């Protein structure tokens, strides 16, 4: 073999190695990217609920421009639920200013109490989006056992955190810490 041929062969061999190394690296990257992305983050179930304006809305259409969403299940007869949502109401404006979060309150009140949901919401002056889940379809699909049950969602409507108890010792602060994490992750440059 001449020197040129050897050098070409060496280059080809190097290229082959480089190519398979790149392929390996790419495969590894894709594998980890896929497995990390599919981290078993629970997707928000897609169920029909009713707005306070009477319109049927599918929960799959809940969106907040990629900013965090809090979904809180409550009922007019659930005292800790009301305590939690009233506590958040006091700081909601600040939360929205800092993170752009949207809180969606899902009432599981059935036909006995659902007529009282809108009057209660207005009495308390809540600024949340409120929906009625009268036959508890959404509650069942999200595996909610009892209320209160509060979920924090990221920009892709995936559950990143949840709690099923009202904790008066900083429970509301914990919810907000998770919201801030989602907001920070959302504004970080994407690894593309």
């Amino acid at each position: 073999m001449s020197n040129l041929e050897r050098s070409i062969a060496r280059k080809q061999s190097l290229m082959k190695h480089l190519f398979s190394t790149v392929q390996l690296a790419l495969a590894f990257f894709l594998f980890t990217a896929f497995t990390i992305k599919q981290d078993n983050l629970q997707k928000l179930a897609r169920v029909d609920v009713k707005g306070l304006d009477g319109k049927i809305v599918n929960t799959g259409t809940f969106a907040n421009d990629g900013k965090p969403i809090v979904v809180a299940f409550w009922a007019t007869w659930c005292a800790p639920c009301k305590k939690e949502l009233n506590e958040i109401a006091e700081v909601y404006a600040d939360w929205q200013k800092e993170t752009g979060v949207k809180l969606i309150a899902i009432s599981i009140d059935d036909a006995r109490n659902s007529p009282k949901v809108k009057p209660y919401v207005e009495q308390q002056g809540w600024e949340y989006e409120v929906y009625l889940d009268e036959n508890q379809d959404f509650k069942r699909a999200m595996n909610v056992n009892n209320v209160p049950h509060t979920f924090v969602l990221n920009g892709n409507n995936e559950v990143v955190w949840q709690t099923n108890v009202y904790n008066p010792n900083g429970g509301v602060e914990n919810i907000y810490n998770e919201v801030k994490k989602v907001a920070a992750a959302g504004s970080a440059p994407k690894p593309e």
Partner: protein
Amino acid sequence: MTGFLNFAIAQLPNIAGGQIHGNFQFDAQYYNPDSTISAPVVPEKALSNGFGNIIYTNGKFMAGVRYEHYLNVMQGFPVGYKGTGIPYRFATYNNDGLEITVGSSYDQFGSGLVYRTYEERGLGYDNALDGMRIRWSPYHGVYLKGIWGKQRNFFSQSPGIVRGFDGELNLNELLGSKMDSCKTTWVLGGSFVSKYQSDQNPFLALPQNVGTWAARANMISSKFNLYGEYAYKINDPTLGNNFIYKPGTAVFVSASYANKGLGISVSMKQIDNFGYRSDRDAAGTSSMINYLPALTKQHTYQLAAFYPYATQPNGETGWQVEAGYKFKKGTKLGGKYGTSVTLNYSASYGLDTTELHDMDAASLGYSTNNFALGQIYFQDVNLEIFKKVSPKFKGTFLYSYMTYNKNVIEGKSGYPLIVSHIAVFDLIFKLSDKLTFRTDIEHLYTKEDHGSWGLLLAEMTMGEHWFAAAMDQYNYGNEVADDRIHYVNTQLGYYWGTNRIVVGYGKQRAGIFCVGGVCRFVPASNGFSLTLTSSF
């Protein structure tokens, strides 16, 4: 090597996409024999209920199962629950707006007057439909539902076949741009349900197909909401109505006004012979096809819920009026953080009926004057005030004046109307960042029944995981000195993530425990209890 990697990468989207989630709950109670509180003797000594739900979701497909065990069923739950099984399993697919569910389903037509299948785990109530359920929105603003199946009855099925159809029209969505300028939403709906059960009765010619229909209308504006529904059932002789051939009717109307700190709601209903079951010989909470909620205020404080009202499906007229206002912070009555005041009045009366002594086999039973009231069943007037006094102290005060017809509501006789005055103070103190203390002081004053009761509850929440509570309900006003018993009960709970474990010990008084319009009687008990719940 690279070939394998390429293959592996190609498989990833198939692995990814589907998700499995669920929840479970385990309850167990140990029963000490205790004759002082008339606690029944439990031969198994300890009883337990449990369930676990698993749901698989992948895009437009969802399937799930629920396993339940009753070994043996706990006191106060329907005794038909025996053993273990998978009484609930379903699969749903949404194909371009046509959603089909096979297996078990839950659904509601309108406000549930003619059809509502639902579950209430705390009561052991589950009338799921086993069959098929279809939901379809063929056009903007048109929502259709159809069901066909048999209802769950413990671990088997009720004999009747239930078929039904519901249509709802949202006129604003349907008429689109023509209604754009209209700020009011108009929704109309209609339903038809029919049940078939063969006639095995040798004496009476019973209708094998019993149909009900309902029509509803809802008008919603930004401040007002008006809803009305009327339902009619053809003759339906059952055990529940003493096999009369009278048709049934039900009316439900509600109106509300809500704006800037003020919320007012008024609801009224009248039902006449409107129990509707898929087994005409069923009793208790078995095989109910429809939902007739009580219209009275749902009380959550122990002594306020001492005498709860339960709907009388054979006939009643009831209403509830509630007005709530929040005095804004900074105003004289509002104080620094605002004050919420709610006034509520609800009542339920029997129908004004006249017995028809018709001796025909197809007896109509009675006739009703729909515009008059019969005897009083229940009434309460409530005042509730909530105030946050400082960042460390907030409290709720409730006063309730209640009238309870024990004979009708509990199916007894010879008892006078029980009139009681109830006062509750629910106070929360934030002792530090990691320690919150809540106390619930209640008093029920009455001259009837067992006399007056006092209740003291102390609850401590420590950090983010621990919770402890102690409660004493004392029947100090009982005429019989031996029956002036302290029902002391303690609880300790630990929470982490979505897991919870609660251990309790003490005496529980006999009482009626209600959720929605369905109640269960829980006998007295003395012993340990354990609850474990989790969702994943």
